[in-house]
């Protein structure tokens, strides 16, 4: 249950971050409808955000390893 709660918390953070960033990018001026092109943009943006998350993750972890090795 701890695990699940942590997983939920993480997913919540991911949803919030995607939402904030993709809302700004895809719907800079909120109109009266959420049309097909908005939906397509949000869908693509979500994938790009997760791509970006992976690049950041890889870079960060590689750097931390390099720094730790430099300390030895």
């Amino acid at each position: 249950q701890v695990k699940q709660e942590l997983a939920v918390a993480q997913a919540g953070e991911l949803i919030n971050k995607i939402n904030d960033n993709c809302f700004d990018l895809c719907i800079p001026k909120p109109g009266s409808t959420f049309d097909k092109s908005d939906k397509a943009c949000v869908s693509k943006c979500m994938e790009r955000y997760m791509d970006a998350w992976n690049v950041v993750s890889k870079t960060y972890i590689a750097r931390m390893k390099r720094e730790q090795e430099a300390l030895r």
Partner: protein
Amino acid sequence: QEIAKFIETEQQKAKLQQAIHNFTSICWPKCITKVNDKLGKDEEQCLANCVERYLDCNFQIIKSLEAAKK
């Protein structure tokens, strides 16, 4: 028991109010660029649209992530 229920209700109210605070913060700078004597019809419409579209976005993301899990 009474107290537990009271606290729970209050916490739900606080959560709802927090959500409304967050939406107002997000939508205010998108819709209000100068201070007028009254809230204009267009400003009001912009705020309502902003909340609706943000939630559309939110629901879509949640559904996609859930679909991806399966």
